[in-house]
């Protein structure tokens, strides 16, 4: 059986090429991510770094670690997905061969051994390639992380030979896991199929596809129907749920849905016989059309759905920030200069929040256990009275008025951390330690990275405040022209003067950038895989169609016309795939429309959609033309007579 696996692999390597590439890429990514994570595990913090900088360095390393973890997991998941579709395709194509094995006395376990043997070979070859590919990839990843500013330039990944065992296990694991479904299907091939093309061979919609597809679509439908009745958080969850469930459901049902959607392309058949042929082929070649459209559906639905969701969250966060501020301007300066703002004519209230460079040890409650955590960032020193005058957010427990003496308030950024009112926190301010009481707790807001703690500004020394970064919210006195006040503030030349709206947008923009760089890495990776899956499906289908193309040419089509018809078909499939994906994405965003803010907060990533559509058509056009040209290279008569 092993020898046969090897022979099949060698004979049909073109079918496995895409899957092999995927495993190479997957193993390479896993290995590189492990190496870079190892390097990031013990961050080198240069001596003399301030506690706050050291904390942000640690956070950066932590963030990089989890980003790499997600990358590796996503790579594994997608590799399994592509290996799975490749094996499903080869099994469908080799039904007669497998039936023949059964006729010659092969048992079901033997057929399974054959396919698992092929999967192990694929895994081993892929691991070998992946181990080599992982080395340059490791440096590329490290470069990406440092150049995008996620990690400091001093970072270097670490090599550990033990990772090789992990790489091989990952490669073989991906290949074996991916091949399970197809192998089980192969074992069910009946010997009779060797003699006649019968039933099973034509069946594309398997029971598994039905179950997955229908249940996922039903789930998506239930979520969509609930869109009118939920709050913002609910809408976020629905957007994520519908994107995933819709994408999985539609891609599972793609052999049914794609040809059905092909009916919508009927008007195009008026453009002549080639268009007619293309449309008929699209509807007839269910497996082929579905295999190409499925990755497009998944990619479009997830990328557009999730990006729009995150964009909307940021936009809503910005709106939230603006809504909760009573004031016109925000001035960014240092603490010393901020003190000049209150005396500017026309300023009614100036509320300064200084970034406090202190370490706070807080008590948290998690699952009934008491935990102590050190917090170094997101701590603001404020003047409680002024802050209340310019900010409307009210605590859920305790009150701002109690921020007197040695006290601290848990801000919206630590609302989910399990901090209770009445507990104590130890603050390290400069060299001394202060015991503070948590006097109030703020509710969570929509903003990511919201302020974590508020301490009264008298806790810091004048010197500390003077040097720290400060943001002052300015409320203009009634009857004064805000623009005049803004000009007077600018005349002070102490820092940046922005309207509340511009300041909030910039603040959200910074968060978006962080979101974007993480999402770009993950989505970019998914896109690479989707492209491999699409090319893979088209190449396999193209090779499979040599005979069909030859017959078409013998019927009177020129080679150019065959290429054109195939291209039209591929474009039709792309249109359907991307269209269905967008349908899912837009269905996912419905919850925000029905919400209190309506379209105001909806951030649809139009540029991304345009790029995605162009990319999908570009790739399918290129692949279709190249594969059809290569499949029609030989003289038609030699192919039409040939049998598999």
């Amino acid at each position: 059986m092993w020898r046969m696996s090897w022979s099949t692999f060698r004979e049909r390597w073109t079918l496995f090429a895409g899957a092999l590439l995927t495993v190479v890429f997957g193993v390479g990514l896993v290995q590189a991510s492990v190496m870079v994570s190892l390097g990031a595990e013990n961050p080198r913090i240069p001596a003399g770094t301030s506690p706050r900088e050291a904390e942000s360095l640690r956070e950066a390393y932590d963030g990089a670690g989890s980003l790499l973890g997600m990358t590796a997991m996503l790579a594994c998941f997608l590799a399994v997905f592509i290996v799975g579709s490749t094996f499903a395709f080869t099994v469908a194509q080799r039904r007669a061969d497998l039936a023949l094995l059964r006729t010659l006395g092969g048992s079901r376990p033997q057929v399974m051994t054959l396919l698992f043997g092929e999967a192990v070979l694929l895994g081993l070859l892929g691991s070998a390639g992946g181990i080599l590919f992982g080395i340059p990839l490791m440096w590329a990843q490290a470069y990406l992380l440092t150049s995008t500013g996620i990690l400091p330039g001093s970072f270097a990944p670490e090599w550990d030979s033990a990772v090789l065992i992990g790489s091989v296990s990952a490669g073989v694991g991906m290949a074996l896991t991916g091949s399970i479904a197809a192998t089980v299907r192969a074992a069910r091939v009946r010997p009779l199929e060797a003699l006649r093309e019968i039933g099973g061979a034509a069946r594309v919609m398997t029971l598994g596809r039905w179950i997955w597809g229908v249940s996922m679509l039903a789930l998506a439908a239930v979520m969509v129907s609930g869109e009118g009745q939920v709050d913002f958080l609910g809408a976020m969850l629905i957007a994520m749920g519908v994107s995933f469930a819709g994408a999985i459901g539609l891609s599972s049902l793609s052999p049914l849905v794609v040809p059905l959607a092909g009916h919508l392309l009927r008007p195009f058949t008026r453009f002549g016989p080639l268009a007619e042929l293309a449309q008929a082929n699209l509807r007839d070649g269910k497996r082929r059309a579905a295999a190409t459209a499925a990755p497009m559906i998944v990619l479009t639905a997830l990328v557009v759905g999730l990006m729009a969701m995150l964009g909307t969250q940021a936009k809503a966060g910005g709106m939230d920030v603006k809504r909760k501020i009573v004031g016109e301007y925000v001035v960014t300066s240092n603490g010393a200069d901020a003190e000049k703002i209150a005396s500017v004519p026309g300023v009614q209230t100036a509320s300064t929040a200084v970034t406090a460079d202190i370490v706070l040890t807080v008590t948290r409650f998690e699952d009934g256990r008491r935990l102590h955590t050190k917090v170094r960032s997101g701590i603001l020193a404020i003047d409680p009275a002024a802050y209340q005058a310019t900010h409307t957010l009210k605590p859920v427990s305790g009150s701002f008025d109690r921020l007197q003496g040695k006290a601290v308030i848990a801000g919206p950024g630590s609302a989910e951390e399990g901090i209770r009112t009445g507990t104590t926190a130890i603050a390290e301010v400069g060299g001394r330690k202060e015991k503070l009481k948590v006097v109030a707790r703020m509710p969570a807001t929509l903003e990511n990275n919201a302020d974590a703690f508020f301490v009264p500004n008298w806790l810091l020394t004048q010197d500390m405040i003077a040097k720290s970064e400060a943001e002052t919210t300015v409320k203009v006195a009634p009857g004064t022209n805000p623009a005049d006040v803004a000009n007077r503030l600018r005349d002070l030349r102490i820092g940046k003067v922005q309207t509340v709206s511009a300041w909030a947008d910039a603040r959200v923009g910074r968060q978006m950038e962080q979101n974007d760089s993480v999402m770009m890495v993950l989505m970019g990776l998914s896109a690479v895989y989707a492209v491999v899956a699409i090319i893979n499906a088209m190449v396999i289908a193209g090779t499979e169609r040599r005979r069909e193309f030859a017959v078409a040419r013998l019927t009177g089509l020129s080679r150019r016309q065959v290429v054109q018809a195939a291209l039209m078909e591929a474009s039709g499939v792309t249109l359907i795939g991307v269209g269905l994906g967008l349908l899912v994405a837009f269905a996912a965003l419905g919850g925000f429309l029905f919400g209190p803010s309506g379209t105001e907060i909806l951030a649809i990533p139009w540029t991304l959609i345009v790029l995605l559509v162009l990319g999908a058509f570009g790739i399918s056009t290129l692949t279709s033309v190249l594969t059809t040209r290569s499949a029609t290279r030989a003289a038609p008569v030699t192919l039409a007579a040939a049998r598999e």
Partner: protein
Amino acid sequence: MTYPAPHAAAPHGMPPFPQGAQPLVPPAVELQSVVRRYGAGDTAVTALDGVSIAFPPGTWTAVMGPSGSGKSTLLHCAAGLDRADEGRVVVAGRDITRAPEHILTELRRRSLGFVFQNFNLVGALTAEQNVALPMRLAGVRVDRRQVRAALADVGLGDRGRHRPRELSGGQQQRVAIARAIVTRPAVLFADEPTGALDSRSARTVLGLMRRVVDAPVPQDGGPSQCVVMVTHDPVAAAAADAVVFLRDGRLVDRLIGASARDVADRLATLED
């Protein structure tokens, strides 16, 4: 259809397997009142309608009939590839009518050989590997000499290392026959074995099948081999010992030692 029957002196006259005239040795394959229906309700089709027939060892029977007469279904049921709805199927002394999958697999390994119209060789394997495949699947140690001898028997001793695509259609079919007989199965089922061949290659293939049937009883005392062949070709059918005719799922006639012309005439009347 001008090529002569390959074996002019075939041992015709062997009991043509009618019911009630059972030969002394038990039949290699026997169908008893077999019924096979496809579909349900108004679209139901009865492919086999109470067929009873026995194929004794050392005989070669051709099964003929118009399209849709049930000849392929008969072959599939007899070989355990399809299940009878009613009746019994006995192969090599074993009732396989309701046999589970692993018993059927075992049966295919030990007692059955298949030759198909489109050869069905494994494209990735060489001729030798193709011939050795049934033994390897059965977990039997592959005797290279035995494999080479089987290929030499079909006149392809020098083509063992060629892959199917490097062989002509006739040569591929000969490899398929070598593969089917290398384990000396009790029954060789052939589905249109000459259907895709030119007349010269067809003659060679028919000659090989005749040799299978006429081979002396093996020393280990096993039965001689039986061939059941479905064909459209009167010339191929005339090379067999007996020809049975099916129409609408029923056995309607049998000819023994008939010429190609007789077979063709009989078939023509059935198709009318």
